[in-house]
């Protein structure tokens, strides 16, 4: 009996199975899509993302998201943004290629900086965002923001300095060790040159030649004596040359010692600053006061901007090379999933045009309708070919004094020209309270203007954050300690100023950034402190310098003498060796001349003298 290939009676159960799968998909597609959206966006953004409801509208190829909350990655108790409804219209053709091309995006009921009912959970899964967060936190730690110390002068304790803590003492010890090493090196070099041996041999020859008579030696004997003399002169010339080389090395070493001694002077300046920091003397430097008051809060703003540009650069890389992503979470190993972008094809993700309606109501001067537009947000900027653009604008008349303007451009189209820039300006908004590190002061700027400009081209940074307010107020932390006299003076100075103007700038590169902060408070505080405690601080500083000088002198002066001694000995020794070579060479040449002159008519070997 022939074996049949197909089992036709299995078609019905197979059809039932397929229908069952379709029904399950229909039933569970939305919850699964909601969970996946939350999971993927949480991992992408590195912060908790919650979606209240997700509806798939299959016949319109649209997705409706409701009650979206994105937690602030820098503050677990706040939402970065909340949106009542988001409608995404997807491109069905791109969807057939498993690509998410959002043709149209509408977002309504958007709110910023709202309080969360429950703190956001930390993102424990892997992914790039936690790494980026760690990197920007490390970036912000490299700024050496001074802490404003307002220790009263009368409480200054006796300055106790340990010499080993001083940089100049350590540097002096290094120089001394190098001097000893150089001296030993010179001795070794002289031994290797064997100047004494060469000179002794030459002297012995001179003695022998002095007692020689050319008539007794005959022509052959004289020629042999002259050849011996020539060889010895060659050896002496060679010794002179090597001594000259050694002299050059010694000269180079001596200039290195000189620069080493100069670094001791620079190290001493650091020691003054170190000793001053032990006394915690109040500073009168306006830039230092500016950084101490507002350095940390400025760095926080730039840190956030850097974090988002890091994310953008990671998720929106330029170029068309295949890209690796971690595979899906499952019981089996995830592996890696590779994307293969192709010219004139859809990117993996593209938000062609998005519109967000923002309505700000209530009594706020910001009241009014705004519109935010996003264009070209994509995972493959090189395929899209244009930079991503975000901008907001007011769509209805509102207060002239209040306004929100945000604009951002991310140009990742070409690998050799990656540029991100953002500018945000908020006028007439209630500015958040700021605390002063190390002091129990809280600044309540009230309503004012805040601007942030941030640009990153390649590795270079340029940023400016500023706030200004005309009715700023200061408050004392009621739970804090009692203020000392200096703190009271500073508080009186700042609380008398209603105008507030802070300007912070960051520049340089990501690896070596520079921060400068200034405010209208700096000069006022500096002048007042100078007037009140300037004399006492000057006395204390004089005491610090004297103490450092005494300690350093005890350790550094012997080193300086030792260096001078080593240098002098080396020069003396070299001069002595050179003189002995030159003397014996002159004697030898005189004897050779005598021998040559005594036998006229003899053709002598060319001696070269």
């Amino acid at each position, binding site marked *: 009996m022939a*074996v*049949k*290939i*197909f*089992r036709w*009676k*299995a*078609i019905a*159960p*197979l059809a039932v*199975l397929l229908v069952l*799968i379709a029904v399950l998909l229909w039933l569970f597609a939305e919850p699964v899509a909601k969970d996946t959206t939350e999971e993927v966006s949480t991992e992408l953004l590195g912060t908790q993302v919650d979606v209240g409801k997700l509806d798939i509208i299959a016949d319109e190829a649209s997705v409706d998201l409701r009650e979206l909350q994105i937690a602030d990655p820098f503050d677990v108790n706040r939402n970065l943004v909340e949106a009542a409804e988001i409608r995404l219209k997807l491109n069905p*053709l791109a969807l*057939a*290629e*498993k*690509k998410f091309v959002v043709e149209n995006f509408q977002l309504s009921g958007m709110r910023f900086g709202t309080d969360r009912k429950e703190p956001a959970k930390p993102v424990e899964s892997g992914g790039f965002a936690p790494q980026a967060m760690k990197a920007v936190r490390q970036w912000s730690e490299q700024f050496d923001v001074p802490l404003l110390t307002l220790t009263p002068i009368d409480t200054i304790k006796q300055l106790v300095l340990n010499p080993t803590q001083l940089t100049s003492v350590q540097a002096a010890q290094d120089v001394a060790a190098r001097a000893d090493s150089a001296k030993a090196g010179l001795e070794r070099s002289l031994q290797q040159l064997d100047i004494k041996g060469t000179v002794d041999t030459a002297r012995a020859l001179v003695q022998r030649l002095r007692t020689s008579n050319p008539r007794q030696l005959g022509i052959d004997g004289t020629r042999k004596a002259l050849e011996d003399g020539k060889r010895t002169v060659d050896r002496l010339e060679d010794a002179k040359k090597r001594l000259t080389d050694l002299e050059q090395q010694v000269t180079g070493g001596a200039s290195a010692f000189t620069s080493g001694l100069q670094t001791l002077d620079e190290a001493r300046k650091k020691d003054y600053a170190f000793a001053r920091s032990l006394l915690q003397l109040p500073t009168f430097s306006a830039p230092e006061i500016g950084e101490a008051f507002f350095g940390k809060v400025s760095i926080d703003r730039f840190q956030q901007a850097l974090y988002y540009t890091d994310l953008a650069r990671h998720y929106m890389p330029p170029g068309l090379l*295949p890209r690796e992503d971690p*595979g*899906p979470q*499952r*019981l*089996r*190993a*995830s*592996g*890696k*999933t*590779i*994307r*293969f*972008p*192709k010219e004139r*094809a*859809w990117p993996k993700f593209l938000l062609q045009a998005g519109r967000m309606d923002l309505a700000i109501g209530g009594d706020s001067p910001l009241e009014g309708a705004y519109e935010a537009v996003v264009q070209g947000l994509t995972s493959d900027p090189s395929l899209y070919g244009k930079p991503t653009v975000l901008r907001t604008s007011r769509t209805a008349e509102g207060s002239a004094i209040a306004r929100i303007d945000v604009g951002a451009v991310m140009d990742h189209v070409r690998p050799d020209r990656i540029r991100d820039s953002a500018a945000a300006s908020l006028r007439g908004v209630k500015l958040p309270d700021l605390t002063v590190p190390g002091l129990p002061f809280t600044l309540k700027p009230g309503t004012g203007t805040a601007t942030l400009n941030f640009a990153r081209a390649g590795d270079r940074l340029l940023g400016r954050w500023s706030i200004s307010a005309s009715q700023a107020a200061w408050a004392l932390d009621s739970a804090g300690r009692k203020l000392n006299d200096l703190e009271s003076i500073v508080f009186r100075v700042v609380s008398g100023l209603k105008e507030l103007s802070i300007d912070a700038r960051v520049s340089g590169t990501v690896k070596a950034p520079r921060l400068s902060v200034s405010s209208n408070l700096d000069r006022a505080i500096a002048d007042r402190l100078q007037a009140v405690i300037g004399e006492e601080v000057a006395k204390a500083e004089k005491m610090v310098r004297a103490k450092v000088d005494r300690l350093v002198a005890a350790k550094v002066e012997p080193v300086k003498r030792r260096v001078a001694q080593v240098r002098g000995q080396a020069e003396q020794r070299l001069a002595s060796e050179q003189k002995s070579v030159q003397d014996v060479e002159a004697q030898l040449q005189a004897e050779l001349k005598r021998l040559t002159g005594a036998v006229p008519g003899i053709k002598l070997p060319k001696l070269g003298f």
Partner: protein
Amino acid sequence: MGGLLPCDPAALPPYRLPAHIARMLALLKLIQSLIKTLHSDGTPGQVAAGMALGAALGLTPFMNVHNLVVFALILLLNVSFGGGMLGWALFVPLGFILDPVFHAIGLSLLEAPSLRSLWTGWYNTPLMPYTNFNNSVVLGSVVAWLALALPIFFGARYGVARYRATIGARVQQSRFYKAITASKAYNFYRLFRPE
């Protein structure tokens, strides 16, 4: 009226088998499947073909489109359905163990410059990306299964034939076999027995 039970059964937490008993039952089911398959009406070739197809379900990550096709083939082709299920059960642990190997194979294929144009073409072809061919473990395991399918088929065919020729008849007479074949599940299985 007071119930016969001291409390409401609905209020009780659902009973769950202890893990070691659940493992034993799973093993028992595997043995049951093995015995049934080896004594099914199918030829050794049909059993072996079913096992070779079922190996795909075990070796490759299950929730993928290609496994739906393989499952449909097990149903539609005149191969042993039991063999397919047995192949699946036998190769699942092997699949987990070999995942790092599959990842390495898949990654080397996906990163091969000579194949880049092929993958790029597939990646940008409608529906193809839903096969997850661009995942290293999926691609590596499918390729490994394709390479192993024929050895599995010939090995299983030889094994089944040898079994039936040696101890098959004695096992068929045992009480154990009779107990297994008397179960209700066996009736469902008979629907898909080879013709």
